[in-house]
């Protein structure tokens, strides 16, 4: 079915008038051919080739270029990006700022990323912070939080949140634990749950108190995922299962309430998946030993059918209109 038949159909049903149909027809016949996607594809390709080529050149000639030159170059890029973002700044407000310069947002993001690269380079090459890793992480975190609120940028905010989480992890866990990739240590889990729950609460506060209302999604998404993943991990691996179960159940319910209130289908999915894992595990854990053999055969089949039914009818069940 092409545009001409659609036009004819609309005309027959009296949706549009005769003159309008002619007008649309002539517009469709004379419109220019859009090459937007092609141009953007070439631009992406160019950026990719440029960065990879630069990377290869630097890698091959590191001994003749020298580290100082590279560090100076990265610092220059970072500083000029921050300068550009600062020059194009808008007055500060607790609301979502409108009419901001798109390029300034990207240059802020690039400035933050190059700042991270600069710091990592200095630490790796010259051990600038020695073994005070927490100190090395908290500097960009503070900078990113400041920049995200001042320049109203959610991308930088999520970088800041990531920095905060890793700073907390570094402060609490001894380094041997992290290098062993053991993320199921109890102290680490509890602190991650507390941080995640704090961020969930903060997202609610920022929503109700109008403190950068549009940041609530980022806080809830990152904090909620952190808290839910860690509470499910704790449920699977540690004692005090009832506490972990209550936390994950509360998070699940909260996700679904948020999905209902704000029309965020992502949180519906998160709530359903985390809730399903926690509930199934707990059911099998509390059931007496002989039950699972009979029960497991039917449980997964019918519970997944139940979830499918829920997802097909969630609008009716949660009372979402349209």
């Amino acid at each position, binding site marked *: *079915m092409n*545009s001409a038949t*659609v036009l004819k*159909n*609309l005309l027959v*049903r009296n*949706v*549009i008038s005769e003159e*309008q149909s002619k*007008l*649309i027809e002539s*517009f469709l016949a004379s419109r220019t051919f859009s090459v937007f996607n092609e141009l953007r594809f070439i631009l992406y390709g160019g950026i990719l080739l440029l960065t990879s080529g630069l990377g290869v050149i630097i890698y091959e000639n590191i001994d003749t270029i020298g580290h100082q030159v590279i560090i100076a170059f990265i610092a220059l890029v970072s500083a000029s990006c921050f300068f550009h973002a600062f020059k194009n700044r808008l007055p500060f407000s607790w609301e979502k700022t409108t009419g901001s310069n798109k390029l300034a947002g990207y240059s802020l993001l690039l400035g933050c990323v190059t700042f991270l690269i600069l710091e990592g380079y200095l630490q790796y090459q010259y051990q600038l912070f020695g073994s005070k890793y927490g100190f090395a992480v908290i500097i960009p975190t503070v900078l990113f939080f400041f920049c995200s609120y001042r320049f109203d940028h959610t991308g930088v905010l999520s970088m800041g949140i990531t920095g905060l989480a890793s700073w907390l992890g570094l402060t609490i866990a001894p380094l041997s634990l992290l290098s062993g990739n053991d993320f199921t240590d109890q102290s680490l889990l509890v602190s991650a749950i507390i941080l995640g729950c704090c961020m969930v609460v903060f997202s609610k506060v920022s929503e109700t108190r109008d403190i950068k209302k549009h940041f609530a999604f980022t806080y809830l998404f990152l904090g909620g995922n952190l808290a839910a993943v860690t509470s499910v991990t704790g449920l699977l691996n540690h004692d005090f299962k009832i506490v972990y179960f209550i936390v994950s159940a509360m998070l699940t319910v909260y996700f679904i309430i948020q999905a209902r209130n704000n029309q965020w*289908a*992502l949180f*519906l*999915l998160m709530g*359903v*998946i985390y809730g399903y894992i926690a509930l199934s595990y707990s059911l099998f854990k509390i059931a007496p030993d002989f039950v699972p053999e009979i029960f497991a*055969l039917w449980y*997964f*089949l019918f519970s*997944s*059918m139940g*979830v*499918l039914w829920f*997802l*097909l009818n*969630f609008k009716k069940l949660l009372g979402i209109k349209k």
Partner: protein
Amino acid sequence: MKKPYNEIWIENLQVQRICEGWLSKKLITPQQNDLAKIAFPQDFYLPGIFVRIGLFIFAMMGCSFFTGFISLFFIKSNSNTFIPVSLLSAIVFSFT
């Protein structure tokens, strides 16, 4: 040939999508777009991408556990009966 879905709805969906495109180019007014939606109705279940992901995951789970359940009737210990059963189910699932 009888089809498992309503063909008129599919055509109406296409009309609605083209009308949305024209609306964004301001060729028709929002009122006309609403009129078109009433004149060419469709009632497919079209949820967002995240709900679709959830449906996919849990449908896969339900299907695989159903396959496992069916295979219990055919499977003999120390044999490869599971392979034909799973292949058969894969074919059946891909057609449904």
